[in-house]
Structure formats: C-alpha cells, structure tokens
C-alpha cells in the first residue's frame, strides 16, 4: 500500500519537475560516484535541504533506478530517463549505463532520509505514514528537518506526532531548557515508547551516582514519567474492561440458552456446546453458499447466517427433545448422561460431514480491523459487534419472556410445573419450544463465535464447562442472574489473567465457583420456594 503511494507520488512529482528545482550538482555526483562515506554525507545534505526533488532522487536510489552514464546521473524508469540534477527528460537513453550501487549502510540511511523527506510532502497520507515511521526511530540529523516540518504542519493528527518526535530528538542532545521542554512534551504522550526514553534519565550508575547529572532534569523526568505511566495504566485498564465485557458477552450468549433449558426443565443439557457448534457450522455453510452464488453480497452473509444458525440449532434441539430427552424428565442424572451421548454423536457426525480439521469462517469486511482508542489499545470491530449482538439477543429474550404468551407459559412452568399444567398450560409443548429456543440461542452464540475464533468439531466441548459455571453461578429462573454471572466471570477471568496468566486465572475462577456453591447452592439469584428440596 505504502509503496503504491510512493510510486504515485513520484510520478506526480516527476510531472512537476522543472529546471528551477535543480539540485546541487556536486551533491548528486557525490551520491552517484562517491565512496560509501561520501554517499552517506550526500544523503544527509539532501535531507537537510529538504527539497522535494531530493525525494525523487533518493527514492530512485532506494528502488535501484539510479544509473550513471559517463559523468551524467540518470533516473531510469523503464524505457524513459531523466537527468537526476535538472530533471530534464533524456531521449534517447545512452546505451552504456551503470547502476548506482547502494550498500546496506547506505540503504539504512536512505530509509530514514526518505521518511524525513516525506514529512514535508504535500500529501497528508504520506506525511502521516512518514511521521509514524519516525516515531519508532529517528536519529539526531533529522532534528532540523523535523523542526522545519513542524513549522509548516497544521494537521491536528500529525502535528502532535511531530512534536513528540522533536522532543525525543531534543532529549538526547540540546540545551537544558530545550531538554526540559522536551521532557514536558513527552509527558503528554500516550505512547509506551516514551517510557523507555524517560527511564534511562532516572537510572543510577553502578557507583550510585545518577546517569543524568542535572537534578532539574531528573525531577522533570520523574513527573513526566508518572504522568505517562498513569495514562498508560488507564489504557491498560480500559483494555481489560473491554476484554472483560467481550468475554462476558460471549459467555452470556453461550449460557443464555442453557439457563432456559435448565431453568425450565431441570435438564442439564451436555449437548449444549454442540448446539453452539452447529450454529457455527451453519454460519460456515451460509458463508460458502454466498461465496459460491452471490460473491457481490458476501459482506452481508451474516444477516442471512444469523437466522439460519438459529433455525438449524433450534431444529436439532427440538428433534433431540422429542426423540430422547422427553423420556427422561424427572431423571436429571440420566438426562445428563444421555445428552453427553448426544454430544459425542453430534461431534462425530460433524467430523464425518465436514472433516476433523477446523474450517475457515471469514469476517465480512465491516467486521475486520478495529478502532484504536489509545496508542496500543485496539478494539476489534468483530468483538464490538458481538457485544451489541449479545445485548440484542438478551433484549429479545427478555421481551419474549415477559411480553408473549409463550414467555408467560415458560415462566409459569419454571415456577410451578404441576400447577401450570393444572390450569391448562400444555407443558410438553412448552418444554419442546423452550428447548428449541434454548438451542436456537446456542446457535446464535455459535454464529457469533465463528467470527472471532476457530470453528471445529470440538468448539462446543471447550465452552461447555464455562457455560455451566455461568448457569451455576447465576442461578436459574432469572435472566438477571445469568447476565451478572456472565459479566462477572468475564471480568474476573480477564483481571486475573492480566495478573497471573490465563491458566491460573481460569483455575482460580473455577475454585471460586466451587466455594461459592458451598455458600449459595442455588446460585446468585434463586427463586424462592417453600419446598424442603427442589
């Protein structure tokens, strides 16, 4: 991409070439015919002059397009040649030409030099790219050029970047006042790299004396460092918060369906993870159909995949309820084993149909990439979309449970099955639909998960323990419990993860749940009942 920009830029500049922009002939000759040291010096001179013509010349050298013919220096592009000093077009090209060689040392110099020259380009994108490149490494010779660019720069994004680069450079050498000013500027940065610039100022030598002899500078550095660290810590916290919410939303999607089936029927559905997997595979199939038959609409395949994933999982769920689970009501442990059997069966079926390898599900264009809220803190769009998706599913569930007749029936059966049955609620039908609904929501979870993770036959197995933990922690019968438990577990996992690593975090959370269950065997939110045991 950048390369394309360079080339277009060069062509544009070549068109603008006029004799008035002529470069210093001695410098160009030194660059073309001089020794390595002379070449490097020539590059420095060209950069210091900051001429746009120099950019074309140096870019040509970097791209291996600079040639010499006798005493003349040429820029050769394909069949056309230009005089490197005046910019005049030369035709016909001299037959005897030699490439101007650039060794590694020169190439390195060229890299930074080109970046510096691009800082004064007219194209904003080029300037931005150049500034970004310099942020990660600039050397002292650039300072005048950066200053020059800064004087001209008006762009609100590029200007602070240049100020930061200038501060970085001034910190190394320069007068005390300039250095203090530089340190203050650095203190305003969000860039983690500034920390490594400021830290050496505060370090002690082996004999106990400070590496930086000037105390004022040390004090300023200390202040700036604290400011930067504070802001970076906030960035880190923001990132943790986001990944916590993100994990929570995934757990919520995975556990919501389970909460319904368990809450309503007391059925621990071990095949719930496989319903998620079916949803993910349904998404995969829809994606392939779109790619094959409607490549133009590929970006919109998710709109179609969401209902398909729901229906696919819901149908499988209803089929299971009718064929196996309804015969086992009232025997929860047997149901657990039978549904485990179903899960094995489904895994093997998917393996036979789609192969044991993971399949590729591609993000639509609008979900790839992310937004950078702070330096180094990138929020992927796919995760943001999933958080919203989880919220929408939750809202839809809530509406369904509180505003529809089926929801009323479902709540009735959850609270008191015999009584609901007595007053005419068709409990077997409600069971079937609720199981279908729970499975369908699992399908939606699968559709969402396919956008951020691997899709393979074992997808569900890795989720099942986590979803159970959410349900166990949240208690049954209320959506609120599931929501709090999912988000709570999401946060706890991420915060502990930052502190102790992913595996220990997971173990700690599991152990916490085991202890939590001792205290509140019915979860966070339990329906109050009068029975001795439920």
């Amino acid at each position, binding site marked *: 991409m950048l390369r394309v920009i360079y080339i277009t830029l060069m062509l544009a500049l070549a068109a603008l070439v006029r004799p008035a922009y002529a470069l210093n002939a001695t410098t160009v000759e030194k660059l073309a015919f001089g020794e390595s040291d002379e070449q490097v010096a020539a590059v420095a001179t060209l950069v210091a002059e900051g001429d746009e013509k120099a950019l074309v010349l140096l870019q040509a050298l970097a791209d291996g397009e600079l040639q010499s013919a006798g005493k003349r220096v040429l820029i050769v592009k394909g069949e056309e040649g230009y005089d490197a000093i005046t910019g005049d077009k030369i035709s016909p090209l001299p037959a005897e030409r030699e490439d101007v060689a650039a060794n590694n040392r020169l190439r390195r110099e060229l890299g930074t030099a080109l970046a510096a020259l691009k800082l004064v380009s007219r194209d904003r994108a080029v300037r931005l790219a150049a500034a970004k490149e310099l942020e990660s490494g600039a050397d002292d010779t650039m300072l005048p050029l950066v200053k020059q660019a800064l004087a001209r720069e008006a762009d609100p994004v590029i200007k602070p970047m240049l100020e930061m680069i200038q501060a970085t450079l001034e910190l190394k050498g320069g007068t005390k006042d300039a250095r203090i000013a530089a340190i203050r500027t650095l203190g305003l940065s969000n860039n983690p790299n500034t920390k490594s610039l400021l830290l050496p100022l505060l370090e002690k030598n082996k004999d106990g004396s400070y590496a930086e002899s000037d105390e004022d500078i040390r004090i300023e550095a200390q202040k700036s460092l604290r400011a930067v660290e504070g802001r970076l810590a906030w960035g880190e916290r923001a990132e943790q918060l986001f990944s916590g919410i993100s994990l929570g939303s995934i757990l919520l999607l995975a556990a919501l369906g389970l909460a319904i089936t368990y809450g309503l029927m*007391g059925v*621990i559905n*071990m095949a719930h993870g496989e319903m998620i997997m079916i949803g993910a595979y349904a998404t995969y199939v829809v994606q392939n159909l779109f790619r094959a038959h409607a490549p133009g609409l590929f970006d919109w395949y998710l709109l179609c995949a969401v209902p398909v994933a729901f229906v696919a999982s819901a149908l499988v769920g209803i089929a299971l309820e009718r064929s*196996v689970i309804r*015969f*086992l009501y009232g*025997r*929860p*442990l*047997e*149901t*657990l*084993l*039978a549904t*485990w*059997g*179903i*899960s*094995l*069966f*489904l*895994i*093997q*079926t998917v*393996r*036979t149909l789609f192969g044991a390898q993971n399949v590729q599900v591609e993000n639509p264009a609008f979900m790839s990439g992310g937004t950078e809220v702070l330096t180094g803190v990138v929020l992927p769009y796919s995760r943001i979309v999933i958080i919203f998706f989880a919220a929408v599913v939750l809202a839809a569930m809530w509406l369904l449970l509180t505003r529809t007749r089926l929801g009323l029936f479902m709540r009735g059966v959850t609270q008191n099955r015999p009584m609901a049955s007595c007053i005419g609620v068709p409990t077997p039908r409600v069971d079937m639909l609720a199981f279908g609904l729970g499975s369908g929501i699992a399908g939606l979870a699968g559709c969402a998960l396919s956008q951020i993770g691997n899709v393979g036959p074992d997808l569900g*197995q890795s989720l*099942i*323990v986590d979803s*159970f*933990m959410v349900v*166990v922690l949240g208690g049954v019968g209320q959506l609120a419990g599931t929501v709090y438990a999912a988000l709570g577990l999401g946060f706890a996992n991420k915060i502990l993860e930052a502190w102790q690593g992913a*595996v*220990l975090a*997971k*173990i700690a959370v*599991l*152990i916490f*749940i*085991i*202890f939590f*269950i*001792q*205290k509140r*065997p019915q979860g966070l939110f339990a329906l109050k009942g009068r029975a*001795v*045991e439920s």
Partner: protein
Amino acid sequence: MGPFAGIFTRLYGTRGWLALGVLACVLLVVFPVFNLAVPADSPFHISAYWVTLIGKIMCYAMVALAMDLIWGYTGILSLGHGLFFALGGYSFGMYLMRQIGADGQYRVNMPDFMVFLDWKEFPWQWWMSDQFWWCALLVVLVPGLLAFVFGYFAFRSRVKGVYFSIITQALTYAAMLLFFRNATGFGGNNGFTDFKRILDFPITTPGTRMALFAITSVVLIATLLLGRYIVTSKLGRVLTAIRDAESRVMFSGYNPLWYKLFIWTLSAVICGIAGALYVPQVGIINPSEMSPANSIEIAIWVAVGGRGTLVGALLGAGIVNGAKSWFTVAYPEYWLFFLGLMFIGVTLFMPKGVIGVIGSIREKIHARIVTPDLLEKTP
C-alpha cells in the same frame, strides 16, 4: 472359619463364591501359566498385549466399582473420578520417574522434563518421591484428602444432584488445566512416561508385567469384597436410603453428611489405587486423564453394567473398554458414534444395565416354568 462364617454367607451365596473362585483362578493361575510357561508359538499362549489389556481393564473395573459405590448405591453422580484416578497415577508415577535414575535421555539423575526445563533441584512436590513407601502412601493420601475436603464442604452445604456433578466436573477440569502447566512440576502436557524400573526390577520384563497383573487382580478382588461388605452392611443400607430419599433419612435422625463423606472418600481412594496400578502397566500418565470426557465415561461403564450391583460395574467396565479397544483399532471413526449411542441407549432402554436385562430375561424364563406351579399353590 468360625466367626467369619457369618460374613462369608452375608457377602455371597455358594454360587457367588464359586464364581469368584473361578475368576481368581483364571486371573492368578491361568494367565500367569499361559503367559509365562506356555511357549510363544503355542496357540494357548496369552500374549503380552492381552496381559496389558486385561490388566488395564481391571484398573478401570476398580474405578467402576468406586463409581458404583458412590453413584449406584448412594446416588451421587461424580463427574470427577478421573481426577482421583489420575492423582493416584501421578503420585505413583513420581516414584517411577525417580526409579529411571540416570538412564533418561540426558543421563542425569533427574526426570528428563526437569532437565529440559533447566531445573536444578526437585520442587517441593517431589519431596521423598524416591521412597516407595512414601509414594504408596501418597497414592492413598492425595486423592483421599482432596476428596475429604471437597466432599466435606460440598455435602455440608447439601450440594447435590446435578449441581454436585457439575462442580466435580469443574474440579477435574481445573486440575487438568493446572497439570498442563509445566510450572506445576509434573511434566506438563507429556506427563510421565518412559519408565524403566519398579522397586529396582526392570518394568518391561514378562515377569514384572505378570507380577503387576497378579497384584492388580488381587486388589480388584479385594475391592470387590470390600464393596460387597459395605453395601451389605447397615452402612450400606443407610447409603441406599440416602439415594432414594435423603430428606427422610435426615428426618429419621441420621446425618447424611458423614455417610456420604465416608463413601465419597473411600471411592476416591479406590480410584487412586487403581490409578497407581494402571500407570506402571500402561507406562504413561498425562493430564488428559483428568479431562471431563474421561470422567463422564466412567459413569457409562457403570450404567452399561448396571447401577447398584457391583458385578454390574465390573461387567460394564469390561464391556465398554473391551469394545473401545476393538473399535479404536477396527473402526476408529465409529467409536464416538458407538459410545454416544451407548450413552443414549442405556439411559433410555436399559436403565438397569446389562445385569438388569439378564435379570428380566431370567425372570421371564423363570415365570414361564414356575408360574403355573405358583398359581396352583397360592390360594
């Protein structure tokens, strides 16, 4: 016999003891003779493959017995028994690792994985692990203590049913994650393998293999008798009562906590011993033994054989694992189908397992022959 006669008749009838005698004969006489004494080219020779396979299945059968005590008799479905099995295996595996001595790949008196991780000394978990008696003690203590502590808290707050199953599953899952870490000090992913010696005997010779087989047989039969002793005792009756109606047991003045805790801990210890016998015979132990899938498979062994009958547990472990070792060689891709169908089929159609099916067939035959008589005689 004297004072023990009562116990003998209580445990099994004449036919039961006879069957047990035959089983012991087969395991302790037929197998050693046909494996060690009969030459390898004879059709009667029992190959090392079979000795290892049957030895392995006997370890599983012990686990199935333990599971049956806790699930079949007490009604508590544990989905974490694989953890106790693995803990027993790891405890004894430590000793086996120390027995390798300096014969490992790096020729250092330290397990290979520790050399690989550049550890200079043994972590605290390995304290005294070169002593056989200490590791043998750990085999009992580690699963036992864990089960006791976990069970005490769980049963005290009356966690039961599906909730209990789920948290045992979480427990074994957490342990699996823990053991997958290299830093835990038990070899990470790879676990323990490449054993060379046990009690200074080379571990792969036919003699050692047969000795392990014989010890496993004896321990299995002892476990069976112990289990039978428990379930025919008053304690066993309380356990069955807890299974059928825990609140009534409570209201009758019993505290179910200690009964459940006893059988739960005992069950875990049996699993640990089974694990310790399993490791030297199979030659490997790794964290995948703790995966939730492994533990839930134990339940299906018991369910296939028949819950609430100890013989059923033995039978189930034999049938399922026999089928597994045949399927995974002959039709590896269909094993999961078969296992899945077995879970579904057994719960739907054979709630009492194979023993139940045999029982009902016997009853039908019995009914056909006996009923006319009975009808005549009963007034």
